[in-house]
C-alpha cells in the first residue's frame, strides 16, 4: 500500500539531492544534499520491505550508521578546511588540480 507514492517521493528527494550536489558550492549544503540522497534511498528500502521482507529495513539501519559516521568525518574535514582557508566554498578548494 502506498508504494507508488513512496517511491515517487524518494525519487524526487534523490533528484533534489543530486541537483544540490551538482549545483551548490557551499560544502555544508552539499553535505546536506548527500544526506538527502541517502535518506531518499532509505525511504525506498523501507517502502519496498513491505513486499520483500525485513532485510531492507535492516539495511536502512546500516545506512544510517554509515551516514552518521560519514557526517562525523565529513564535518571534521569541512571544519579543517574552513580553518585553513576561511571559506567552505568548494570553488576555492582546488589544490589537487592536475
Amino acid at each position, binding site marked *: 500500500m502506498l508504494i507508488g507514492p513512496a517511491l515517487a517521493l524518494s525519487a524526487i528527494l534523490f533528484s533534489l539531492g*543530486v541537483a544540490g*550536489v*551538482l549545483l551548490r*558550492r557551499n560544502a555544508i549544503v*552539499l553535505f546536506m544534499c548527500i544526506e538527502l540522497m541517502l535518506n531518499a534511498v532509505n525511504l525506498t528500502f523501507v517502502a519496498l520491505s513491505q513486499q520483500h521482507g525485513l532485510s531492507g529495513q535492516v539495511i536502512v539501519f546500516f545506512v544510517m550508521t554509515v551516514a552518521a559516521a560519514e557526517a562525523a568525518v565529513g564535518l571534521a574535514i569541512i571544519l579543517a578546511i574552513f580553518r585553513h582557508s576561511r571559506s567552505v566554498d*568548494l*570553488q576555492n*578548494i*582546488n*589544490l*589537487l*588540480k*592536475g
Partner: protein
Amino acid sequence: MTHSPALHALAAAADLPTARLYLIALVGLPLLGFLLNGALAIWRPAAKNAVSVIGSGVLIVAFSVALLGLPSMLEGAEEGLVVSLWSWMPVGPLQVNVSFLVDHLSAVMVCIVTGVGSLIHLFSIGYMKSDPGYARYFAYLNLFIVFMLVLVLGSSMPVMFIGWEGVGLCSYLLIGFWFSEKANADAGKKAFLVNRIGDFGFLLAMFITWQALGTLDFTELLSKAPTTLTVGGSVVTAITLFLFLGCAGKSAQIPLYVWLPDAMAGPTPVSALIHAATMVTAGVYLVARTNVLFAMAPFSSSVVAGIGALTALFAATIGLRQYDIKKVLAYSTVSQLGYMFLGVGTGAITAGVFHLATHAFFKALLFLGSGSVIHAMHHAYHATHSHEDAQDMRNMGGLRRYMPVTAILMGIATLAIAGVPPFSGFFSKDEILSAAFARGAESPAYYVYWGMGLVAAALTAFYMARLMAMTFFGVNRTGATEREHLHEAPWIMTGPLLILGVLSLFGGWLNLPSFIPASFGPRGFLEHWLEPVTKAGAGVHPLVMPEGQTETMLVGLAVVIALGGLFAGWRATRSTALVPAHNAIPDRGFMGVLYHKYYVDELYDAMIVQPLLWFSTTVLWKNVDQKVVDTGAVNGSARLSRGLGWLGSRLESGQVGLYVMLFVVGALYVLGVVVR
C-alpha cells in the same frame, strides 16, 4: 691398444659412472686451474710460483687422466661413448644435453690438446717469467684448454659450439694480452670479428641440419644422414658449405685467413698453442667429425680441397718474403692448415688428422723455438736499451753459436715441416698429396689441387730454409754490445722443446705408410685407430690410395721437392746481402707485393671495412640512430606521452563540482546500460 694389467682391470670396469668421472676430471681440472689462477690474478698477482704449479699442474694431471682413462673408455665402444652430464635445452623435440662423445677421433684430439698444451704451459713458465700479467696469462690459458676440450668432446653441434665460441674468446683475450698497445688490441678485435663470419656459417649449418634431419647429435646425425639425405643433394651441400665457412673462419682459410697472421701479437707460447697446434685445427676436426656429410656432398668436398690447396699455396708464397720470424711461421701455419683441408676434402680423413697431429708437434716446436729466440733477442735488446725489433730475422743471424739447443731442435722441426724423410711431416704431407693424386683419377680437378700442394711443399721448404739461414746461420747482425747478452733459454723452456723435437722426429710412426717395411713399426696405426670414425664416410665415397709404382713415384717426387726447396732456400738466402732491419732497403716489385701480403688487408679495408664504417657512421649513426631512433622513437614517444598527459591533466581541475558531474553522468550511463 696396449696397456698394463692394472689398467686392464680398470678397463673391464669402464662403465658409465667411471667414464663420467674421468671426463669431469679431464674438463674440470683445467677449469679449476682457471678459477684458482683467476682468483690469484685478482688478489695475488705476485704469487708466480703458485700460479706456475697450478697452471701447468692441472694440465699435466689432465693429460695423465686422458692417457689413463681414454683407452679404457674406448674398450668395447667402437662407435664411441656418449656421456651425458645434464640436460641443457629441453625444448619440445629439441633435446640438447651437455654431453661428451669419447671416440677414437676425440681421443686423439684430447691427447694432442692436453699433451702439447702441457708442454706449452711448462714453456710459458720460463717465457712469461717477468711479465706482470703472469697469473692472468695462465688463467686464460687454462680456460682455453677447458673450452678446447669441450669443443673436441662435445657430442652435439650446440655443445661443440660452446667450445668453438669459448676458444674464440680465449684467443681474443690472449692475442690482446698486452692490450695497452693499440695494435695488439686491434689484432684481437680483428680475430674476433673475422671469426664471427665463420660462426655465422656454423650456426646456419646447424639450423639447416636441424630442419633436415631433426637432430644435432653427431652420432645420430651421422647414422641418419645417409638414409635421409640424397648424395650430392642441395641440402647436404648447403650444410657442408656452411660448415666449411665456419671452418674457414676458425682455421684461417681463404678468404677468412687474415686474422691469423695478426694474431701473432699475442705471447709466443699462445701462438704455439692456440694459433698453431690446437684451436686453428678445430675446423679440420669438424670436417673429420662430420665426414659422412662431406662424403655425401662431392661439390663441397671439392670446395674444401680446392680452398685448402689454394690457401696452402697462397700463404706459402707470402711466407717467402716476411721478415718477422713469427709472421713466417704464421703464414706457414695457414699454409699447413690448407694441407689439412686438402686432405679431409679429398676424403682422406686420416691423412688430415695425421697431419693435424704432426703439425701440432713440429709447429708448436717451431713457435716455441722462435719464442726462445725472441726471448734471447728481447733480453739482449732490453739489457742494452736498444729499440730494435726483437722478432725481425734481419736482426738475427748466427744464433746457433749462442743457442745451440734451440737451433738443433728448430732444425729438426724445419726438416719435419719441409717433408724430409723420416721426419714426421714427410709421412703426413705425403699421405695428403697421394690422396689428392688418387682422387684425381675420379675428378681431374684434384690433379690441379695436387699440383698446387706440391708447389706449396717446395715453397714451404724454401721459406723454412730461409728462416733457418737468416736466424741461426751466417754472421750475427744483432749488434756488437747486444751480442754479449744473447744466451740459451733456461731448461724449463728447452725441456718442452726437446720433447716436441722427439715427437716431431718420430711422429710419423703414428701412421707409417705401407711401403715402409713392417720391421720399422706398425703400419697405418692411426688409419686403423680412426677407422670407426672414418668408415661411414669412406663407405659413401671410397678413396683408393695409390700403390706400387705410382706410390713410389709420388714419394720420390715429394722427397725431391722437399730437398730441392730446402737447397734453393738455403742458397737464395746465403747469397743475399743481409743487413740489420734499420739499414734494409724495402722490397720492390713482386717481392714488395709478397712482403705486403698481396695487399689483401688493404683490399679488405677498402672493400669491406671502410664501406662498413661509412655506412655505420653516415647512414646508421647520423641518420637512423640520431634522427629516427633518438629524435623519432625515443624523444617522440616521450613527447607523445607528455601530450597525452597534458590532455588528461585538464580533467583534473580540482573542482569537486566537475568530478561529481562526471560521476553522475557516468552513473546515469551505467544505469542506462544496466536497465535497458
